[in-house]
């Protein structure tokens, strides 16, 4: 167990330092870049040089990187040029919004895809299986923005049941709850398609095992075979996939956030990238990667809990 923890901790730190170094280099390689960004396009070269000197940006890249990481280690992430606020506050605020969206979506995705995946995989090639497989394939094929456009044109433009934006500020006669329906629906439909096919594949494989045949042959009711014997084993390999969705849900929902003008982490990163808000890009990338590696570790842990064979 200790070896497991050390190994993963080392990998986490290694990944974080490599990624942060790459992002840092990309943004701050040319000495004038940061000062030029600060002063704007109309500043003279003399002014840029002066600020570069003042901020110590003319020192070697590696020195500046080590200094930056030192600041990060004590929680100082700098100030965002785009939002004119400390990077930490900006990130925490947007991350909290995205966490709300992600939690709601995750709470729908897991039961829905388990239900569909298991009922499809328990009888391979049955009519139900083929219908669910087709549905999940089509859902996973439609880009999120297209799914958003389709849902908006039905439920907002045509029926007028729901609002087309989710700014999290109640207004225009719509509550925050109503605003969240469509973004969550888009994420769930898009992502569940993928998770369903994973669970289905695993279930199909488990249903071919000898112990399932034994259970059926000794006269156990089919429902009991599925619930008691198949499901637990069929969920072992998809559990990693399911946990990896957390990663997608937090960092990957930038499209959904853009469609519905949702003030979340992904859209914040997009704005930071387009605005070249260097401090925010660097810190946001660190957060995203840290989160990704942590969910990977969680996946490994869940795997070990479910499958005693690899616990050794």
């Amino acid at each position, binding site marked *: 167990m200790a070896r497991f923890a050390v190994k993963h901790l080392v990998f986490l730190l290694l990944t974080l330092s490599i990624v942060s170094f790459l992002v840092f280099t990309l943004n701050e390689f040319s000495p004038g870049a940061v000062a030029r960004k600060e002063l704007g396009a109309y500043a003279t070269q003399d002014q840029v040089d002066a600020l570069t000197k003042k901020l110590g940006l003319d020192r070697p890249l590696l020195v500046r990187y080590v200094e930056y990481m030192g600041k990060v280690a004590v929680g100082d992430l700098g100030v965002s040029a785009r939002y004119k606020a400390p990077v930490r506050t900006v990130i925490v605020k947007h991350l909290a919004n995205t966490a709300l969206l992600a939690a709601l979506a995750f709470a729908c995705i897991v039961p829905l895809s388990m239900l569909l995946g298991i009922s499809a995989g328990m009888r391979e090639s049955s009519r139900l299986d083929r219908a669910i497989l087709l549905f999940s*394939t089509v859902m996973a094929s439609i880009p999120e923005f297209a799914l958003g456009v389709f849902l908006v044109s039905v439920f907002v433009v045509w029926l007028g049941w729901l609002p087309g934006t989710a700014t999290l500020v109640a207004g225009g006669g719509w509550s925050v709850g109503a605003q969240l329906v469509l973004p969550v629906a888009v994420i769930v439909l898009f992502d569940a398609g993928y998770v369903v096919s994973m669970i289905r594949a695993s279930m199909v494989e488990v249903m071919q095992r000898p112990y399932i045949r034994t259970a059926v042959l000794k006269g156990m009711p089919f429902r009991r075979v599925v619930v008691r014997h198949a499901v637990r084993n069929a969920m072992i390999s998809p559990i990693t996939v399911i946990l990896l969705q957390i990663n997608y849900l937090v960092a990957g929902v930038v499209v959904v956030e853009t469609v519905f003008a949702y003030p979340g982490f992904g859209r914040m990163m997009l704005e930071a990238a*387009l605005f070249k808000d260097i401090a925010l890009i660097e810190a946001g990338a660190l957060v995203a990667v840290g989160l990704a590696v942590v969910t990977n570790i969680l996946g490994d842990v869940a795997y070990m809990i479910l499958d005693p064979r690899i616990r050794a």
Partner: protein
Amino acid sequence: MATVDVLTVSPPAASRRRAPRWWRAARAIRHSTTASIGVAIVLVWVALALLAPLLAPYAPNSPDLLALAHTTPSRAHWLGTDHLGRDLVSRILWGARPVLIIAPLAVLGATILGSLLGLAAGYKRGWIDLIVTRACDIVLSFPVIILYMIILAHFGSSAWNIIAVLTLTKAPIIARIVRGLTLQLREREYVAAAKMRGESSLYIMLVEILPNARGPLIVDMCLRTGYNIIIIGVLGFLGIGLPPPDPDWGGMVKDTYGMMMVWPHMALFPCAAISSLVVGFNLLAVGLRELGWRD
């Protein structure tokens, strides 16, 4: 894999008269309805893209100012026009071209790079394996969409830059698949025989191992092409895709999405176009898997 075994044991006399191997593989697709529908959709789009100069009723970038009064579908503009009065049929037809060039090129790039890395890691083992798998883990742990935003916003967006980022971010997945297959295949007799003959490792990797790993690779290439099309659309939608004014499906949605309440058709038709093309590639992949091209 079953098809490969049958082909290798067939007598040489018969194989001389038979159609080429790729043609027989292509003909096998009709045994799966799913794959056939997928192929049909993809081929229709390829034909539309190729024939765009002939089929498109208007130039894709030229505005029809008179049509701006009625942008909705009409006899003159079958799918209507966009907010600048540009014909949607023409823009969608021309928009199929960049997608159908960039997505497969990026898949090809990723497959070549990924196969080489995976072969080297799986066949040579040792420190190469360690570095390749760790590097792949790091790239794969990064939320790709954020990576695209940082890189494309920094270097500017062009077709080549998109191909480059797609190649670099998709290669690790292929490398993982190929490495896994190589680990199994390197223990086979024919690899041992090639070693006995004194073949170089490069020959063994490319001629003995890689062709036997192609089934799963081809299924994966179909899936990967579909995902790449989604990503190209997403980049366009986020405003970091192909530069305007040439038609790009994602960019068309981005430009007209704000007018959904008034003119939903402007965003709906490009969305339908991109969705149908991705559905085609993914159905093809599902069908190939049914036919036993396991992954």
